[in-house]
């Protein structure tokens, strides 16, 4: 049969899996060609031999691109549990790059990256591309010291400020406690983490008139605008879809007051990084 193919789903082997602490892993795949992945893009990931369950691919932000792209996962459910046990050579189907990547950093501003837990992935990817420019500032928070995967890599690429809620590392408190003093006319913010964190970051930035871009998370079945499972309440009413209008989006386009701030699903299904 004929048929043009532009974006495609590829089945590729896992190249390696590195474990970080109790619940984080970096999975690197051997795609064999450069798919023009940019920081902020995401990929739908599914074990090629999973059969009927887990059924759906998992949306994951890229941690790196190139011919051997990687993702950072946190074990939260059935799919990520399988990924956390995967051995090199195991086949995975990858569909990407998808979504809207981070907007181009403004060379006249210093970048302040605000990360919560596993949300660090697209921000570390971004930080690595800022080499040569002025080192970005990163504010990185978690509940406790073990919730800060890849902090050492961040420290190599950025001026790093760490917060933990229990005070086991860095400043005791939240990223937003530290962020206020870093905001000014000459910075712009990129943020990825729990909704509540991003809502607070967006609020602080709006008050100070600092540009703020966030990478949102929502459950998705497809990743390319068909299932309509990933609505994010939009400013002015209605929804934007995380997969095609995000995941990276200007924080002012989101109606944070309508975003669901109740305890979120404990499992997976959302873009977890």
């Amino acid at each position, binding site marked *: 049969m004929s048929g043009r193919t532009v974006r495609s789903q590829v089945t590729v082997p896992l190249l390696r899996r590195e474990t970080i602490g109790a619940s984080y892993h970096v999975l690197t795949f051997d795609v064999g060609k450069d798919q023009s992945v940019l920081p902020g893009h995401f990929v739908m990931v599914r074990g090629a031999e999973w059969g009927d369950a887990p059924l759906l691919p998992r949306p994951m932000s890229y941690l790196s691109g190139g011919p051997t792209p990687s993702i950072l996962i946190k074990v939260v459910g059935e799919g990520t549990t399988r990924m956390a046990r995967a051995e090199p050579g195991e086949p995975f189907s990858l569909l990407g790059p998808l979504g809207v990547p981070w907007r181009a950093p403004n060379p006249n501003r210093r970048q302040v990256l605000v990360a919560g837990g596993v949300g660090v992935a697209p921000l570390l990817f971004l930080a690595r591309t800022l080499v040569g420019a002025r080192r970005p500032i990163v504010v990185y928070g978690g509940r406790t010291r073990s919730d800060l995967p890849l902090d050492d890599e961040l420290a190599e690429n950025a001026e790093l400020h760490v917060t933990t809620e229990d005070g086991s590392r860095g400043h005791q408190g939240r990223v937003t406690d530290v962020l206020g003093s870093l905001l000014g006319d000459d910075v712009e913010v990129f943020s990825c983490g729990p909704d509540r964190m991003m809502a607070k970051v967006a609020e602080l930035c709006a008050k100070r008139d600092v540009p703020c871009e966030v990478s949102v998370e929502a459950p998705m079945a497809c990743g390319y605008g068909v299932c309509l499972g990933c609505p994010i309440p939009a400013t002015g009413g209605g929804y934007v879809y995380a997969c095609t209008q995000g995941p990276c989006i200007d924080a002012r386009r989101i109606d944070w007051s309508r975003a*669901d701030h109740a305890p979120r699903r404990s499992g997976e299904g959302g873009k977890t990084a």
Partner: protein
Amino acid sequence: MNRLETRIGNLVLKNPVLTASGTFGYGLEYDDFFDVAELGGICTKGLSLEPRAGNAPERICETPASMLNAIGLANVGVEAFCRDKLPVLRERNVTVVANIFASSTDDFVKIAERLDAESGVHALELNVSCPNVSHGGIEFGKDPKLAAQVTSAVRKASRLPVWVKMSPEAGDIVAVAKACEDAGADALTAINTIRGMSIDVDAERQRLANRTGGFSGPALRPIALRIVWDLCGAVSIPVIGIGGISTTRDALEFLLAGARAIQVGTASFADPCAARKVLSGIDAHCEKLGITASELVGRARR
């Protein structure tokens, strides 16, 4: 000759493989993956008279070998469909089945009339079985009289073939099917999703904002197959099988049970090319047996 050619009433399809409403957008979203004109047809996202924003999040969650969705029929509306989507589909020679939804018979008729005025729509699929909206939808599909009333009204308002999508939640689905046949339906699509729910044990709350959502995916397949078998034995119009079809062998089960064609739904999420793979597989199967797709239909009933 084309061994996969499939007749649904007066409508001739290239082959018996279609994609299910709600899992294939308006078709154009799959442009990057393959030429959707290769398919027997695509069923559009349910179209309403006015655009709909859909339900609040969370709208979907995964369940064992299945998923739940409560999208709430978010769609661009029939007017935007005719203006923005249909011309492209027409130009590409895509066989388009417009899935339509309304909360009253009058509105069903208005949407049908609007689509009737366009070229490039090959059939209408009446969604009288959506489980995710508070008015209309499933109420029509549970009651033989209401289902017949909608079918008859649309039948009179449009020159297009009318397919009616059956709800598995009808108490007596055979009665609904026969009522639709008597009211002039050209074909039946079976089945729509069935309502399910899921609770997040750690958060101690329902996973879907709508509480319930349509249950779809491989786990639904045995139920769908049973209903398709029953309907094929009860009506003489074609039945189009749908429910958890992911692979060629899944599709063959429905054809062997008597379905004239099939629709691939949830499987397109995990593999955007799922429908095309099913199509290739059916073609290879027919070649191996030296028969046409039509000759496969109902062979398990002999």
